[in-house]
């Protein structure tokens, strides 16, 4: 790509310059070295090397789970590979695509690209204003060379030829070579334009992606039916701000989940019984102090609100468990989001009740929306909707560790220091509740009830101010690519030679500038049309 006077796909065949390297080189000063490295970096060979290196460098990130796309997978991987994980961690393999080495490769590639695009743009700009070059004296040696005899005089024939070439989109210039009039023509400047657009748009994509990531943010929140999400830092379960994010970027709004309606295949004879057909979240959004508005969010239909998009990414059940003390006073009554474990929404939940009872209790609960007894005597869920809901609970007492100031995972219960009071290893059996059932807790602690089974959705809020620009540049990439690959850049010449006997011979030839499979055919087509037109002209 270094040689800006060449078309993009010019085959750089001469080995002469390479040979020069071995000749005694002049001493290079610091500037000289800088120039040397710049030359090296912007050479086609280096660009190709970096491109292939980038492909190879992207592979490890697909073999090892990534923090960005699969954080739980990373935790799992580290637990399973205690010796390998620290080594990979050192080399930033869990964050491959933002790692120093991966960034270095693509940044070098883009520097190389810019170093190539700028001189080529300048050269192309000159070429756009330049006249087509003088016709070569010896057309025989060029591609598609063909001759015709002209019924018209030399000057007139060339004038007709010029018109013909112009109509076909050529830029033309008349010359006289060795006394013979000739027209020199060139077309396909768009090929190089497309090429430059393609490469510049790639830079545009990179910048837009960078800016979008820097000024944007994403937030996740689990919302139970009847509850709402508000677009503020405190409301999110997790929040990932960009580097240049400020709180001011959060437009105040709230989205309340009125209901979540899944549709499942309920055809008992179907092999896809229980498969999801549709998810619809009915929400009410309120922007600033404005009027509440009803809306729906579906999987492929995010809700656009205040410059953000709100996506429906997950759902499940959030059973409401009510716990009363021995006097019948309610000490706990709220929904807890259960994590779905399979397609039939068999789910796992952890409930922690630190206050209100004589002892702190922690509950490890399993929820079966449609409970069935398996051959092994265990419970399973056979359908994702609520046909025969059942909640089983193992209850522990002891210090839940919520008061020591260290954050604990709401979705995990560390039972090492706890005592099971109901469950497989306790005197009391595992507690089983259907909807509306209530049962006494062991040790006279009180009672527990399955009060209601609302659903929850997991909403993702995204704000990326540069997203549209990424799309625009991506479209430019595609447009530039198509133009640069499929528009032929070629030169074409017609020379009219008057022989000693006064007869006029026409010579045609072309020159490909880049890959141009159709050149020969194009030359003979021009020749044919030209002679046809001349024939008509003479007859009339």
């Amino acid at each position, binding site marked *: 790509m270094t040689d800006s006077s060449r078309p993009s*796909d*010019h*085959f*750089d*065949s*001469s*080995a002469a310059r390479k040979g020069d390297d071995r000749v005694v080189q002049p001493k290079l000063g610091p500037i000289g070295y800088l120039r040397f490295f710049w030359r090296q970096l912007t050479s*086609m*060979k280096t*660009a*190709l090397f970096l*491109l*292939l290196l*980038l*492909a190879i460098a*992207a*592979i490890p*990130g*697909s073999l090892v*789970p990534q923090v*960005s*796309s*699969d954080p739980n*997978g990373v935790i799992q991987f580290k637990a399973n590979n205690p010796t390998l994980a620290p080594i990979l961690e050192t080399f930033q393999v869990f964050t*491959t*695509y933002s790692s120093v080495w991966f960034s270095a490769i693509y940044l070098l590639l883009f520097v190389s690209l810019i170093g190539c695009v700028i001189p080529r743009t300048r050269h192309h700009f000159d070429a756009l204003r330049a006249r087509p070059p003088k016709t070569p004296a010896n057309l025989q040696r060029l591609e598609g060379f063909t001759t015709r005899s002209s019924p018209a005089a030399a000057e007139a024939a060339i004038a007709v030829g010029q018109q013909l070439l112009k109509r076909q989109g050529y830029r033309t210039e008349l010359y006289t070579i060795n006394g013979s009039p000739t027209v020199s023509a060139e077309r396909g400047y768009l090929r190089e334009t497309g090429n430059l657009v393609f490469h510049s748009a790639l830079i545009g994509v990179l910048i837009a*992606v960078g800016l979008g990531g820097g000024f944007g943010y*994403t937030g996740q929140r689990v919302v139970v039916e009847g509850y709402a999400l508000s677009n503020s830092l405190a409301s999110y379960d997790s929040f990932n701000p960009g580097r240049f994010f400020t709180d001011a970027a959060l437009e105040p709004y709230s989205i309340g989940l009125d209901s979540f309606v899944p549709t499942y*295949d309920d055809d008992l004879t179907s*092999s*896809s019984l229980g*498969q*999801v*057909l*549709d*998810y619809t979240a009915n929400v009410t959004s309120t922007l600033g102090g404005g009027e509440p508005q009803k809306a729906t969010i*579906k*999987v*492929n*239909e*995010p809700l656009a609100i205040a410059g953000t998009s709100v*996506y429906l*990414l997950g759902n499940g059940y959030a059973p409401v468990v009510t716990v009363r003390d021995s006097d019948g006073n309610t000490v706990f009554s709220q929904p807890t989001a259960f994590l779905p474990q399979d397609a039939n929404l068999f789910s796992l939940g952890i409930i922690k009740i630190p206050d209100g009872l004589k002892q702190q209790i922690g509950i490890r609960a399993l929820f079966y929306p449609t409970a069935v007894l398996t051959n092994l005597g265990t419970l399973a869920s056979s359908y994702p909707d609520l046909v025969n809901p059942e909640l089983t609970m193992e209850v522990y007492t002891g210090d839940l560790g919520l008061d020591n100031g260290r954050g604990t995972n709401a979705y995990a219960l560390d039972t090492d220091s706890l005592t099971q009071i109901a469950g497989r290893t306790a005197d009391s059996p595992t507690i089983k509740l259907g909807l509306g059932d209530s049962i006494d807790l062991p040790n006279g602690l009180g009672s527990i009830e399955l009060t209601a089974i609302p659903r929850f959705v997991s909403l993702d809020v*995204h704000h990326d101010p540069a*997203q549209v620009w*990424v*799309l625009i540049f*991506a479209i430019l*990439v*595609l447009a530039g*690519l*198509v133009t640069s*690959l*499929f528009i032929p850049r070629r030169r074409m010449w017609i020379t009219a030679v008057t022989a000693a006997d006064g007869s006029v011979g026409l010579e045609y030839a072309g020159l490909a500038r880049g*890959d141009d*499979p*159709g050149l*020969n*055919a*194009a030359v003979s087509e021009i020749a044919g049309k030209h002679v046809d037109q001349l024939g008509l002209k003479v007859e009339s």
Partner: protein
Amino acid sequence: MTENFVLYSNIAVYSAMAIYTIAFIMFTLDLSRRSANVGATAEVGATIRVGQLASAGSTDLLERVDSSATAPAAKGPRYLRAAFALTAFGWALHVGAVFFRGFAAGRVPWANMFEFTLTATAIIVGVFLLVQVWQDLRFLGSFVVGFSLIALGVGTTNFYVDVVPLPPALQSAWLVIHVFVASLGTGFFALGAALSVVQLLQARRAAGKAVGLKFLDTLPAADKLENLAYRLIVVGFVFWTFTLIAGAVWAERAWGRYWGWDTKEVWTFIIWTIFAGYIHARATRGWRGSRSAWLAIIGFGAVVFNFTIVNLFFKGLHAYSGL
């Protein structure tokens, strides 16, 4: 009704496979016949030498060649003609299978690995058939039909799943566009890789190796094959670029981000980069010829890897194999 359509589809695909098998044998017999006949008759050389056709064609990359140029190629020797006709017949059944599967499901027939295998192989064979209008590439028949047969074999035995409704994430117009164009790109990459394999063999033969493969004498020379491969691969590359962009637009709708380095996204990117490298290699001294041919083959290898290994064994959001 659904069961009937599924049945028709399966019957059609098994019939197509049977016919492809015969076509594959015929194509291979043709290659061996070429080996036997090399230099023996002028007739073979005249009909098979594709090189002469290339001078025809016009400004557009894939435009029809002059009919005068295609005429002799359309005849060709007996085995080759039979093989090609059988492939076309098998393809008609194959396309029938694709349509019946679509009718059965009431949607586009490429929502799980079995359906994708079924449709993508139909597109690959379709591209192979259509490309003959532009160039006589029938000598690639063994490769293309053989590849499709293996894919269909694995697809029908290992990937088969019943017709099930679309999960919500796939309920989008982008399913139609994104996946179809990806398959189309795959078809062009497959042919490009096939040509590159022949190109490498041809280069070895020219260098005095691979002496045993006499049929190569009846095929175009290495540089000719390289040009043909290049023209097919750039078309594939444009489709692949579109696939990548369309995928990003869809990912933004469905998953809330246009690019998240999901394993499938990573491999689509890797493939794009390899073929971008291929195109640049053709303009780089020392990389034209066999090296760029290797890149084309590696690129197509990555496409196959992306569809099989990545789909089945890598964890990611594109988990729609249905297995």
